[in-house]
């Protein structure tokens, strides 16, 4: 990839192999590093970056540290040297298993990180709308959320990857709060609709969701997408 191609990408690919030219200008190298680091920071998916130097030009440790420092996830950047024997196709084969594991780990962690910030996070009126989903200590309750969403406790336990028994014992446990925050964000729609209309909305095919029911997105763990959709509705974002 060249400078323009890297800049123009909307997101980093899963694997980026960057071969440093023999006459690469050092300043240009650092500019590209900054762009890559920024994109890595904005990406929610794992992306492995392999920077290959000509064999005779491996930088010293101080320079390598300087090169890696801008990356928010330096463990996903590898410095290697180029050899005629190591083709890119071989390299891809070697790192493919690592990429697979990184993707698996990322998917399992996405919901545990909780939703991204919303413009309504500080709104007392909006938070009051979902106040009934919280227990005395302020934690969200899976049981109350299940009741609002019109689903069984077994179903919400399955969404959360927990057993029904475990959820029954601690429906407002700290450990499940990040996942429940997504559902609280979705429940903020009640600022505009009644409780029964909210349940109706969950089962209505929605043309702005490519004809899918919000419930389908919930069942397939697309919680951030649905939370964003509710934000867009509350903020009147053009379609």
């Amino acid at each position: 990839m060249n400078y323009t191609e890297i800049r123009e990408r909307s997101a980093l690919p899963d694997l980026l192999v960057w071969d440093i030219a023999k006459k690469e200008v050092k300043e240009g190298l650092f500019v590209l590093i900054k762009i890559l680091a920024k994109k890595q920071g904005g990406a929610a998916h794992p992306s492995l970056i392999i920077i290959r130097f000509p064999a005779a030009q491996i930088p010293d440790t101080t320079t390598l540290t300087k090169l890696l420092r801008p990356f928010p996830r330096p463990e996903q950047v590898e410095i290697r040297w180029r050899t005629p024997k190591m083709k890119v196709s071989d390299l891809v084969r070697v790192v493919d298993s690592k990429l697979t594991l990184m993707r698996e780990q990322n998917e399992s962690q996405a919901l545990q990180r909780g939703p991204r910030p919303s413009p309504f996070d500080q709104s007392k009126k909006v938070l009051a709308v979902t106040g009934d989903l919280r227990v005395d200590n302020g934690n969200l309750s899976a049981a109350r959320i299940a009741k609002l969403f019109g689903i069984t406790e077994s179903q919400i336990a399955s969404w959360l990857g927990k057993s029904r028994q475990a959820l029954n014992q601690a429906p407002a446990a700290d450990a499940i709060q990040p996942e429940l925050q997504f559902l609280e964000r979705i429940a903020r729609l009640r600022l505009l609709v009644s409780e029964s209309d909210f349940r109706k909305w969950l089962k209505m095919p929605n043309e702005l969701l490519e004809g899918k029911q919000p419930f389908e997105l919930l069942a397939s763990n697309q919680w951030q997408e649905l939370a964003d959709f509710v934000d867009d509705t509350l903020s009147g974002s053009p379609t």
Partner: protein
Amino acid sequence: MDLAALKKLTPVMVTSTLARCVPRDALESHLPVDFLYTSGKAGRYNPAGLNCIYFSENAIVAVREYERRMSTLPGLIKPFLTYYAEVNLPVLDLEDAAVLKALDLEESDLFAPWPKSLGSASKTQQLGEVVSLQKEFAAIRFPSDAAHRAHETGFNFVIYPSSTKAPARLKIETGAISPSQEWPPI
């Protein structure tokens, strides 16, 4: 999407008042309102992670957009408030057929569904990313899908803070309810 193709195009300076309709309950729910809040959630002209803000070209288009959103909710349409932004921006105008051709875009691309999550980007989202990386254009003027579906002609704007540099300007007309807000920040 090609940055080189964008560089061959000339921005159109737009001085206008843009509009957006917001459910009254939501707008009044958190005063003072941050009208320029950006969360990086995906939109038609921005992949997830890229900050920008959307407005309609005028109040009529803003109402069409509002009606479309509200049509997906059960019950009666909710009351709304309209707020306005005064802008003076260098714009990439997708109404211009020559611009579409230069960017290798078809009209159908402008109304196509767009991915809500990371990992892939539609042509319009890729265009937004490219525009956000330069300073010649601060905004894109694009046809409103809501107006299009209502068999009307109307346009929206997407404005990128990273590309909005003086003398380009966006100022929210807040009236008395909030402090004035603008890009670039004063």
